């Protein structure tokens, strides 16, 4: 109950004070306009998933899990494995989310993350083929926000790339090539073949100010948002403008430049966290 009290008291301060703070170049939580909140990544946290990660972006928490299974490839892409991205926005994360059929935002969230992975060609799909045209690995990525304090898109993106980086695929032995039969050896595993690490940056526009990584307090009063994902080569690999309101040409260029400027720092942070943070089920102790 206490967080709500906290929030309602805040909200009276909020709207009046936020604009005056912004005028002085400050944000309500003390950050500068282009600062990202602290990132914490707990990898391999779900043993039954082939890959998983819990990501903190400030107080926003997102859990992503990966399941791997055998599937038939698409007829026109016999030499490519498959991946599917889903997002479940349950009321666990926010009273604004409802059970029932997927909301527009949950569909957008899943598709934006999916596009960044697809455009950057992060996963080497050809290495997921077992028998061309017959059997390939299918990678199911599912995003579960647990606590929404703003910027679910970037937090989900981080959780998904971290989960994919922890994913292991079992060995598949072909037992009957003609009939397309395969034997799965669960104990022999190899990492999911990854060739890129796209990072997304979401900007909010409030009045004429552009802020990176908005908190939920900032999202409440923003007019619109812009997400830009950058791949390993420093290219843009996905863009999504969201909510009503519009961006000026210059604002888009600024956001793009900031994203390119920040990408290496964030990518390094992700890699470091995955290397150093406790892995496995006991990581829950750290929550």
């Amino acid at each position, binding site marked *: 109950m206490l967080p709500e009290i906290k929030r309602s008291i805040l909200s009276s301060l909020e709207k009046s004070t936020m604009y005056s703070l912004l005028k002085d170049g400050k944000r309500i939580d003390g950050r500068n306009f282009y600062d990202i909140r602290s990132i914490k990544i707990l990898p391999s946290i779900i043993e039954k998933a082939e890959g998983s990660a819990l990501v903190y972006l400030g107080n926003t928490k997102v859990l992503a899990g990966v399941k791997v299974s055998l599937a038939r490839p698409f007829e026109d892409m016999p030499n490519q494995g498959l991946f599917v991205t889903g997002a479940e926005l349950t009321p666990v994360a926010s009273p604004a989310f409802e059970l029932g059929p997927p909301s527009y935002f949950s569909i957008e969230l*899943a598709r934006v993350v999916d596009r960044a992975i697809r*455009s*950057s060609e992060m996963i080497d799909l050809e290495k997921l083929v077992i028998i061309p045209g017959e059997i390939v690995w299918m990678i199911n990525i599912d995003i579960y926000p647990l606590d929404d304090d703003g910027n679910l898109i970037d937090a989900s993106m981080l959780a998904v790339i971290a989960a994919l980086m922890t994913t292991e695929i079992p060995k598949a032995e072909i037992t009957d090539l003609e009939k397309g039969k395969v034997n799965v050896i669960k104990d022999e595993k190899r990492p999911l073949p990854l060739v890129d690490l796209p990072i997304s940056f979401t900007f909010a526009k409030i009045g004429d100010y552009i802020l990176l990584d908005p908190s939920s307090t900032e999202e409440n009063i923003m007019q619109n948002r812009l997400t830009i994902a950058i791949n390993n080569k420093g290219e*843009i690999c996905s863009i999504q403008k969201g909510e009503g309101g519009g*961006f000026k040409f210059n604002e*888009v*260029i600024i956001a*793009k430049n900031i994203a390119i400027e920040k990408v290496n720092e964030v990518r390094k942070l992700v890699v470091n966290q995955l290397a150093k943070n406790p892995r496995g089920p006991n990581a829950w102790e750290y929550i």
Partner: protein
Amino acid sequence: MKEIDESKLILIDSNGIRTDGRRWNELRPLRIRVGILDRAEGSALVEMGKTKALATVYGPKEMFPKHMANPDRAILRAAYRMATFSVEERKKPQPSRRELELSKVIKEALEPAIMLHYYPRTVIEVYILILQADGGTRTAAINAASLALADAGIPMKGLVTAVAAGRVGDQVVLDLNDVEDKYGDADLPVAMIPATGEITLLQMDGTMSSDMFERALKLAIEGINIIYERQRDALKRRFLELKEKILGGEFYASRD
């Protein structure tokens, strides 16, 4: 039934000519008709090449259920749907996740242009049916929808105009057709309110360097300015038409 062998596909030939005969900075043939339906309060058909988008508008009207209404402004609803026969392989009538995402971004592309605060507690509805899809359906949809809004007499800051730019190899191109969309290297649909310079839709898939992105975005805005002129012409024709009908006594109201 795959029809195109990707390896042999040449999207721009050595003379700089694209698969449908255009140069890199040319729009497809554009046809616009406003007010073509009687029952809808506003309507428009926009054809960009073989892509055909039909939009209709209703409202402002009372919002049900009432507790969903906004006391400060009208709510905008938009639905984007494709006809089952608009594409090569029949599409199922149930809306796909893609159609639902596009409904959302189209709504958000139109919203900033509409004077929603004029009509608190009401709803304005925009329905778009893609009759044929050949690349750029979301931008055709936005062009049609903003004309249908104008035809319905909804007050706006300005029309919303949209077109995609993209990348084919190291070339920036304007107004991608279906083959360029599928086999090109990046697609950058853009919507703008030319009257204010606000970009109200911006998406991208594929990859582009920072520099090429700026060039592509500028190219899209140039295309938008051309389409915007054509939209205004079409609207003018529509209003002249209506004026004649009214003066000509076609409406019962003028019989008295």
